[in-house]
């Protein structure tokens, strides 16, 4: 175990960049889950990974290259009028094939391909931190306006008839926010780590939270808790960050759901609704 690494100033910037994403991505994931679009996050992450590598081959840093693919995916999703999960499955396949082909045919691509899959948090620099700061600040600023529109259009599709243009703008805005989040997440934390932050905390919160505000808070809280634990474990025991974060998220999720079942048994069966 290497406890000194936890206090090394070298890791402060990566830690801060990842922490900001651990706050924002679970909240974005909660809205994706409400819209039944969580697979979109995995599709966009694959596109972000692929375009990050293609960009790298052209001399563009991943923090700039990754958003291009994700934003392209978001536009295809928004304007392509695809139904169901087909478009997301295609994004995953296209991104996966492109990532591995670029990685196999360039020396730098090979190293970065591994880093994207394993999670290369410790290489996050000032550009990643600046990008995540702007992203998280914009997301938190937009959410109070965006959430009511997204919830309303999901649960009450007949209520927005008179104002469809405004609704469509917010939905496109959300798609772009997801794309940027997945691009930053993929280039900062790694592909599967970013997806796990979008998927796992909302999955738990949807089961356990008593109301919507608690669901958002629980998602963000679980994301941050798992991230801090994973950061410490990966540094102290010299483990790859991405798989460590995914493992910790799943462990925290399992414990939280188990604790919920135990609490529910203690309280007894719910009152019968008529």
């Amino acid at each position, binding site marked *: 175990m290497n406890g000194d690494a936890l206090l090394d100033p070298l890791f402060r910037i990566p830690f801060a960049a990842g922490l900001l994403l651990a706050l924002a991505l679970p909240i974005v994931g909660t809205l994706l889950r*409400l819209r*039944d679009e969580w697979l979109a996050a995995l599709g966009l992450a694959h596109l972000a990974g692929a375009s990050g590598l293609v960009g790298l081959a052209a001399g563009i840093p991943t923090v700039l290259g990754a958003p291009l693919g994700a934003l392209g995916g978001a536009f295809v999703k928004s304007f392509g009028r695809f139904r169901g999960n087909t478009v997301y499955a295609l994004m995953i396949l296209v991104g996966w094939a492109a990532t591995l082909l670029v990685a196999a045919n360039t020396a730098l691509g090979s190293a970065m391909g591994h880093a994207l899959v394993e999670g290369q948090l410790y290489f996050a620099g000032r550009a990643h931190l600046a990008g995540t700061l702007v992203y998280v600040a914009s997301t938190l600023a937009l959410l109070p306006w965006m959430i*009511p529109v997204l*919830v*309303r259009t*999901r*649960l*009450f*599709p*007949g*209520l927005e*008839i*008179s104002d469809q243009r405004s609704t469509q703008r917010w939905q496109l805005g959300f798609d772009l926010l997801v794309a940027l989040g997945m691009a930053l997440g993929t280039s900062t934390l790694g592909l599967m780590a970013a997806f796990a932050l979008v998927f796992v905390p909302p999955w738990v*919160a*949807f*089961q356990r*939270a*008593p*109301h*919507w*505000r*608690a*669901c958002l808070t629980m998602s963000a809280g679980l994301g941050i808790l798992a991230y801090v634990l994973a950061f410490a474990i990966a540094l102290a025991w010299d483990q790859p960050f991405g798989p460590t974060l995914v493992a910790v998220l799943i462990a925290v999720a399992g414990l939280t759901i188990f604790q919920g079942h135990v609490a529910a048994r203690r309280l007894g069966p*719910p009152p019968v*609704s*008529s």
Partner: protein
Amino acid sequence: MTQTLIVANGLVAGYAKPVIGPLSFSVGVGEVVGLWGANGCGKSTLLRAIAGNARIFDGDLGRPPGLTLAWQMQQPVRLDEMPLDGHDYLRYAQAHRQAPPNRLAPWLDQRIDTLSGGQFQLLAVWAMLGGQCDLVMLDEPTNNLDPTGEQLLTEMLQSQQGRRAVLLASHERRFLDEACSRILEIGR
């Protein structure tokens, strides 16, 4: 004089081909109008046409510019997991024009995915009625309701008479007779 919100003259509506019509009718502010007819006669298609979601083949359908609509389809959206309580549900529906009926109050603190089908149906109807929209359209609002639930729904709709326009489609004639100020018979 009652302000007219919807005017149909010889309206023929449908999708790939006509389903309903020709129909001529109007709906004014303060009216609770029932659409009655057998299953498959085109009641839902008429509501869709008013909402702009069905094709108009012939005739006119007039509505004032800026008319706001709340349209509850036959099956209100109910997800397997909905981490919202009743307060959240009504808040996001913007149903704050009126306080909900007392009978709904005990359900507001529960997650809506724990409500029974009838409780959720009544909450979903109130989400439409409690808002600011000029015209509320309800498609088969008695779905999942037992006689007690139907009675509460009738009271909720009767309380709207003289206050706002409601257009509701149902195949239950007795319910429409009790809840509506006027009934349009479709398919005759």
